[in-house]
């Protein structure tokens, strides 16, 4: 289980027009994500989703708060990055390397023996349907192909946690479907999945548990069906607006 406890990370931001200073990021957020379930972090742009996801992926560090994986503090876990796979809609793959080289690079950094790594890449290539383009330089890839390589490089270390940050942004309908199907497959494999999005129908389709985040604070969280009952709403979008409008 992944437990996020009182996480705070704030940045200074200056409004370009008004020159007003403000703090953005996340403040005292806590939630738990279980293996074999998809935990959705739902919020508008600038709500603090990416900051949270980057902290969980160990790309950036919190100012306060702790993260526990199976009861063990993140700070005490060696080679943490190998246990977390991070895929982001904004983050790109190295466009001057081939898909194979990118995945191999991540495998090498996870100390996977050469032969085993080659087998793994072969398996991922088969699983994600990358055989036709894996040896081409990524500059020629479509957005969907790039996203497949992104997922493969996150999976090559066989991580316990998969962090998907706005992964369907900008994808066409086919690529978006393929990515969502893969996420469902990883859920079946028992991985801890964090999925951030502002696309509410995607959240409805994928998430088992959610937290609604707004201006760096979690407004409410829980099992999706429990939240539907609690707010007497059919969709996550309706719950989101109910919570956010109450705040405004």
């Amino acid at each position, binding site marked *: 289980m992944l437990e996020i406890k009182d996480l705070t990370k704030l940045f200074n931001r200056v409004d370009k027009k008004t020159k007003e200073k403000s703090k953005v990021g996340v403040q005292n957020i806590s939630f738990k994500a279980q293996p074999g379930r998809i935990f959705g972090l739902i919020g508008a742009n600038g709500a603090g989703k990416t900051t949270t996801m980057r902290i969980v992926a160990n790309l*950036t560090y919190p100012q306060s708060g702790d993260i526990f994986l199976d009861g063990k503090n993140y700070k005490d876990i060696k080679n943490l990055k190998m246990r977390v796979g991070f895929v982001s809609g*904004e983050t790109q793959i190295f466009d001057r390397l081939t898909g194979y080289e990118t995945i191999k690079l991540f495998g090498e950094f996870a100390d996977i023996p050469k032969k085993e790594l080659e087998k793994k890449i072969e398996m991922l290539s088969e699983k994600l349907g990358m055989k036709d383009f894996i040896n081409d330089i990524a500059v020629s890839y479509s957005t969907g192909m790039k996203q497949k390589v992104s997922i493969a490089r996150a999976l090559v270390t066989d991580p316990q946690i998969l962090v998907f940050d706005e992964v369907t942004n900008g994808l066409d309908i086919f690529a978006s479907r393929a990515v969502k199907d893969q996420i469902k497959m990883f859920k079946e494999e028992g991985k801890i999945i964090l999925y951030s999005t502002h696309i509410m129908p995607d959240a409805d389709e994928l998430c088992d548990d959610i937290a609604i985040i707004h201006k760096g604070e979690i407004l409410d969280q829980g099992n999706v069906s429990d939240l539907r009952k609690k707010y007497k709403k059919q969709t996550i979008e309706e719950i989101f607006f109910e919570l956010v409008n109450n705040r405004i």
Partner: protein
Amino acid sequence: MRNNNNMRSKFWALFKKEVLTITRDRKTFVTFMVMSVLLTPLLIAGLGAFQEFQRKQLEKEEVVIAIKDQEVDQNLSNYIKANSQIRVIDSSSFEADLESKKLKGYIDLNKEGTQIIAQFVYDQSSNASIASSLKINAIVQSYAVLVRQEILDKNNLTELDLNPVLFSQITLQEVQNKPSQNDLVLLLLPYIILIGLIQGAAQFAIELTAGEKERNTLATTLSLNASRAMIGISKIAAILLLSLLSLVLNVASLMLTFLLMPADAFGPSQPGVENGALNLNISLGTLVQIFLVLLPLSFLISSLLILLGTYARNQKEGGIYILPLILASVFIGLTGQAFDANTPAGIFLIPLVGHVALLKQVLLGYFIPINFIISVISTFAIFFVILFVSINMFKREEVIFRK
């Protein structure tokens, strides 16, 4: 031991990724290689060919002049008129005729005591007029030689009697049969080396840092199971390799330039010039010394470029940050002429300036170990400070993730 090997192989993988990022941008990389080697020699060769073409065109043109006060030295006037390339016409208004291009110039003859003063007036705004000035000068000089010889014969004297003391110069290095450098090489080589080292690497440093931010691949790199120090150092190492490559290409370009330069560009009595052509007196030992001087500098420059590129939000901003460094290197590169074998040791503490001074000394055949050691210590001290700042910058999210 196994841990060390592991670290090394990870560093190598990261370094390879950075080098591939640069070299797989084929168009940019090939343009960089070709332009580094060929641009200067082609420009020089082109300029030489253009000048030669212009000279020939001007030679074909008829030189029409007038002579003011011909009676001052009728013999000289007749000598000029006898030359088939010159047509002397009469003029009543010399300046007006020159201005209206009727004349290419006119000679104003005067006499001071026994000396004839022939002043050629030409129009600076006309290339043909400038060229005719050179022609007239050659004719008047040849006339002066004839008159001089007549005087010598009349008085039963020789040239030697008029020039009892002959001054010439030779370098100590030539006396000792040591390699002697041409002044142009001494001025240009440290300059070209410095520019080559910085300019070639600059664009790629921006590409690997601000370019990664722009392409949204920096977060991907950071998600590798590697320390930020290793990520930063691998980028510096890739830039180090490219700055050395750029350096080699620029020196090759310089050598090619000298080969294509017109032989008379160096003058007949210049050191380092044999039979009118430049002889680059750079032995293998000198090359090794140049490399030793430049290696610490390459470390320093690579780290500085990565630091500036990392701070930049995008490639455009990175280019602006690096511009002052390139401009500074242009000026510092030209300070080489101020240094010699006796340059005070304090100069070697200053990066770039000290390296130019060291290069000048090496080219002069003076490799002074204490100066080299001072430079190495100073350069690496600054390098480690910049490295420390660069690595810390990689840890600062407001820098890494700012857009």
